[in-house]
């Protein structure tokens, strides 16, 4: 992702610049107000269940309840939750194709279900598991249709398309029927399809599902750039925590239809806690290190893994170990965000502090990696952590991380 997005009005020719002027002005106005407001929103589905030979009974199935949050224009928010938690229900209500049974929703100041058509012009939607593209036709035809649907001015359309084609490297398959595209190519097409009309808000439901590492990285880079350069509000639903770690400063976690967490990713990590791991390399194999407040979860030759509470400072610990043992090298690992989220789901409505110091270590001590060859949950997940860990003031040890274990050499 070396090419940057143009600012919305950067057209070479004056007429097109004038045509998109309102879009530019719009951004300024909207920064002052929320893009999405949910106020006590609930959705209950009514099912008829057979109860006896002829009788049918009415069953209320609450999908989401009492959702209240607000997303400002220009934010990039991760919307997380296990399957069936109510993520799609929420997105459908935000698009206006599902009417809430309680509460109030405003998107761009509009009531989505009442002003669905008007709102649709200002939204982009990508469902990773579905496509809006015409299966049998070249990619370009689908884009051309969107130009008419959204009444995109021809100059603007051409400019946007050129940029997306360039940025997502779609030129080689622009004339290929969609059915012949690979999943990664198709996803790039779907992303473009959702963005050609310069939407103010984009909902992405699992945009990286099924993609390989390279394609995932391309999609993430693209979204980050879109958010940064155009100020597009992005709401991202995903099960891939790397998406969240790399893209979303803010996360909303929904479980059993209720909002379980709304805040910054690092706060989520701190709140749910678990344990951090201090990995030390000694000069030679040594019996398990005995330092107060830690426990050794694994020993492998001269290397040992010490778990300690995520909330505790690592500095005294490092000092003690360095003082008493022949230390060559050490590094500190954050709890993987998967584990944090998983803990949030399983802990349900319990007080998070109860779960803080329990069960964290298992995640690191080999059960997660039966092979035993590598104890981090994948370098990809790991490398994302540094984006969110460095600014936390009360933890003095620099928690750099990367693909190697030798992050804080002595």
């Amino acid at each position, binding site marked *: 992702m070396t090419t940057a997005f143009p600012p919305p009005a950067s057209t070479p020719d004056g007429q097109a610049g004038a045509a998109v002027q309102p879009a530019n002005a719009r951004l300024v106005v909207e920064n002052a107000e929320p893009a999405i407001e949910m106020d006590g929103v609930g*959705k209950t*589905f*009514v099912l008829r269940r057979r109860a006896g030979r002829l009788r049918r009974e009415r069953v209320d199935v609450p*999908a989401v309840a009492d959702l209240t949050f607000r997303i400002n224009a220009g934010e990039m928010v991760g919307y997380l939750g296990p399957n069936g938690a109510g993520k799609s*229900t929420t997105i*459908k209500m935000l*698009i*206006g*194709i*599902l*009417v809430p049974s309680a509460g109030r929703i405003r998107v761009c100041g509009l009531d989505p*279900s009442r002003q*669905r*058509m*008007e709102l*649709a*012009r200002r*939204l982009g*939607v990508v*469902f990773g598991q*579905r496509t*809006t593209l*015409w*299966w*049998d*036709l070249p990619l370009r*035809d*689908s884009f*051309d*249709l969107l130009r*008419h*649907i*959204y*009444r995109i001015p021809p100059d603007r359309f051409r400019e946007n398309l050129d940029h997306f084609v360039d940025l997502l490297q779609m030129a080689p398959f622009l004339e290929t*029927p969609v059915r012949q595209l690979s999943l990664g190519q198709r996803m790039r097409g779907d992303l473009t399809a959702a963005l050609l009309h310069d939407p103010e808000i984009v909902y992405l439901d699992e945009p990286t599902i099924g993609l390989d590492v390279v394609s995932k990285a391309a999609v993430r880079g693209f979204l980050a750039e879109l958010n940064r350069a155009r100020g597009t509000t992005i709401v991202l639903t995903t099960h891939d925590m790397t998406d969240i770690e790399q893209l979303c400063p803010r996360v909303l976690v929904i479980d059993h239809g209720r909002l379980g967490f709304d805040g910054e990713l690092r706060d989520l990590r701190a709140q749910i806690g678990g344990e951090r791991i201090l990995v030390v390399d000694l000069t030679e194999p040594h019996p398990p290190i005995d330092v107060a407040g830690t426990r050794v979860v694994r020993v492998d030759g001269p290397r040992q893994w010490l778990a300690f509470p995520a909330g505790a400072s690592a500095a005294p610990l490092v000092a003690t170990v360095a003082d008493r043992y022949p230390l060559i090298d050490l590094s500190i690992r954050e709890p993987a965000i998967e584990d944090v989220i998983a803990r949030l789901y399983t802990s349900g409505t319990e007080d998070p502090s109860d779960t803080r110091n329990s069960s964290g270590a298992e995640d690191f001590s080999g059960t997660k990696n039966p092979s035993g060859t590598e104890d981090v949950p994948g370098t990809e997940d790991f490398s994302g952590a540094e984006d969110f860990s460095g600014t936390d003031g009360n933890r003095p040890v620099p928690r750099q991380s990367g693909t190697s274990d030798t992050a804080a050499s002595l």
Partner: protein
Amino acid sequence: MRGSVATYLTVARCSARRYAGYRAATAAGAFTNTVFGIIRAYVLLQVWHQQPGLGGYDASGVVTFVFLGQALITSMALFGGGIDLPERVRSGAVTMDMARPVSFQTWWLADDGGRAAVQLIIRGVPPMAVAALLFDLRLPTSVGTTSTGMASAGIGGVIGTWGLFAVSVALGFLVSFGLRYLIALTSFWLLDQRGLESAYTLCAVFLSGISVPLTIMPGALRGLAEALPFAAMMQIPADVFLGNRTGASLFAAIALQAGWAAVLLASGRALTARATRKLVIQGG
């Protein structure tokens, strides 16, 4: 707010390209259609040889009627289908369709229209061309040779007949779409709309005129068949083409088509609103 004409024309064009895209399937379709047309023509010619003038058609009239049926059979979707909506309801993809800022019904009309146009050409022109080599067809140009009462004179009459035929085919398509769209919409409520589709196909095959001209049916059945929307899909356009209807009779036939089209499209519109309401309240 509901989408421009250009939008729907583009939808129709995309749909048409989609149906024209599979060359082998297209060629096979045209070939099969021609062969079946020839077989049907010979069968009916035998009948008309025994009973000349049956149902008001002479031999060349009934052969032309057969190939008009071949031209219209897939265009009017007399065997059902053509609208992918039920599939999209089942898969949940209909959610994405609803998210577009366009009229749902008009979108599908445009989509089906593109399909119908392509199939009218593919299934109409090659079989008709082959038939013209094998049989004595009655085209609107052969003025004055009609033995069935109609005599449209002069070049103006010819153009008029082709024009009326085009109008009648277009109205017939709207009727066909209207019915099939209603059936497709039921997939929002029914788990499977195929039962209704089968009923449609059965009715269309026997009541549209594709099997035999409705005019040879006995009294009451003929009256019923000629009043139902299925007649609008094949019998009426064919009669307009052959010049079998004139004056008040012609006007009544076109009006019947227009009336059914209006009723069915309005019902489709109402049912679309209910389907949308169901979807937005009940979920996908």
